[in-house]
């Protein structure tokens, strides 16, 4: 199947939104057998984080590389080590499909051991993704902490490629040290697309000239106007930022949080990712604050 790219992007995504818990159809709902994707490029984001570009090996799987929403994730396999959930770090508006992997244990180490030309197994995309439809026409605040920034990068690039549809867009991002900041080469392009970007770190070194402290201090500086927001990061940071945003007049249902849970299947069967009545893999991973505020 050849994909007509002109049909992608905003048009396809228009029906999305409204309904906050939406199930997106994965590529192969019926099977646990992944398809194979070749690693076509590798970039180093930090000492323990790589950005991998992937290309499906078979034509029939190619649509996955473009047919997804920011905020969705893939189940990535290294055969012999296992399978784990990894957010899509690229935007459907751009080639190629990318994932940003941080070393956590044996599977992530296995993914990071891949070289260009090696093959990974992929299932997905899974999850609902950010409700970009309902964000359109709104101010958008994107707040990330640590490695959770990968999934937000997908959203930021998506917005940057369709900038005029959104009102004021602000990105705040915090990491432990300057070396832990991801996608540093792209901040300029976001600013060029009239996205306000605030970066901060916890611990500094001699070379750092930027902000120090929590992302909430950036919010105080940038004072974003209420609208839609997308959050991803450590639970502590999510709680603090959400509280801050509520104080600024953001509505609970407009605060979209990307959650992480232990996952094994990605399709709502294995029960590992349950959070109360929700399956994070199919009902999430993006939840609005009014739904999960008391669960996080």
């Amino acid at each position, binding site marked *: 199947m050849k994909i007509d790219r002109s049909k992608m992007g905003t048009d396809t995504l228009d029906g999305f939104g409204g309904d906050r818990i939406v*199930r997106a159809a994965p590529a192969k709902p019926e099977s646990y057998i992944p398809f194979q994707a070749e690693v076509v490029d590798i970039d180093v984001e930090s000492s323990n984080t790589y950005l991998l570009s992937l290309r499906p090996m078979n034509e029939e799987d190619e649509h996955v590389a473009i047919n997804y929403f920011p905020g969705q994730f893939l189940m990535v396999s290294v055969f012999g080590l296992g399978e784990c959930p990894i957010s899509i770090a690229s935007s459907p508006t751009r080639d190629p499909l990318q994932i940003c992997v941080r070393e956590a244990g044996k599977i992530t180490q296995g993914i990071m051991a891949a070289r260009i030309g090696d*093959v990974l197994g992929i299932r997905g995309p899974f999850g609902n993704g950010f409700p970009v439809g309902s964000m359109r026409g709104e101010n958008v605040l994107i707040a990330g902490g640590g490695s959770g920034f990968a999934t937000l990068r997908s959203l930021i690039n998506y917005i940057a490629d369709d900038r005029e549809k959104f009102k004021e867009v602000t990105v705040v991002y915090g990491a432990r040290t300057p070396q832990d900041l991801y996608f540093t080469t792209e901040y300029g392009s976001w600013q060029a697309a009239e996205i306000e970007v605030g970066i901060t770190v916890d611990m500094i070194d001699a070379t750092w000239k930027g902000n120090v402290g929590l992302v909430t201090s950036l919010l105080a500086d940038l004072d974003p106007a209420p609208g839609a927001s997308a959050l991803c990061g450590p639970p502590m940071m999510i709680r603090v930022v959400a509280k801050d945003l509520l104080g600024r007049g953001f509505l609970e249902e407009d605060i979209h949080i990307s959650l992480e849970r232990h996952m*094994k299947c990605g399709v709502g069967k294995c029960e590992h990712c349950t959070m109360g009545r929700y399956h994070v893999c199919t009902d999430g991973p993006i939840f609005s604050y009014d739904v999960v505020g008391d669960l996080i």
Partner: protein
Amino acid sequence: MTSTTALFISREDLIHLLEELSGTLEVVAPVLVGDEAAFATWRGEALALDDKNPLASPVEFFLPKKEVLFRYVQYSGRYTFSEDPPKARLIFGMRPCDLLALKVIDGIFGADLSDLPYAGRRRSTIIVALNCTSPGEGCFCRSMGSGPVAEGGYDLLLTDLGRGYLVEAGSPAGVYILRAHHRHFEEADIEDIKEKERLLALAGEKMIKRGPFPNPEKIREAIDGADWEEAGRRCLACGGCSFVCPVCHCFSVLDQGVPDGERLRCRDSCILSGFSRMTSGANPRPDPGERLRHWYLDKFVYIPEKTGLFGCVGCGRCSRVCLGEADRWSFFREATE
């Protein structure tokens, strides 16, 4: 002969029928293993139908405790995959509670993103159910609406009348078996049908003392009010309650073998602390009590929301295996009093 008529089969003919069916299908039936009934491939041994429902539910023939999802073979960096086709099987002697458990799992594994291995086995398995004329000690299927009489979900349904079995078909496959093997059956007379009704009414009465159908609201209240911390203190983390429950279906996935090998799926238990622990070490349900609470909430609140059926069919197995000597259902009794 039509499918609407009930038929009768003698004990001897039943064995002949199973022998004939064994020629084309794997026949699974309760046989004695270590002095107790267990479902296993039938090879002509005596059937253990009089015992209580086996501890290991026949649901394992649909959702095995361990199965190969697929095999991977690597050749110069690229993989090829293979799966085993589902086995053609007949399960003989499945009880009403286990039948209903399958229906609940259908609602989860058969729903939207359906589970291929499960669906395949579901399609390739013939179910010969057995009504419970003498329910076991801990059974409370009547409270959960699953038994002691099977209501659908079977291909054939048997009721033990003592001298033989009353047989009813519940699907085209069942009708087909009755036709193909008609010489083992005789037409049931009205007395047989009356006898069936009498026996099942009797079985139902025995159970009515064990509580009426629960009210979901009251159960929710009871779950919220129960002392989960105390329940958790007594839990010895054996996982047995979920390993043995015919409705529990959670699983884990792992790979074995490099460069060629298998991706396996194995039964898991949300009672175990590592079940939801994340790579960071953070655990959304760190205490045993919280995990137990979630277990019941899932069965009595979340699964009903999703499937319209309770996630418990009242088979009583979880109480039989509990190591912690916890009275697992005290809250439930209060709710149904």
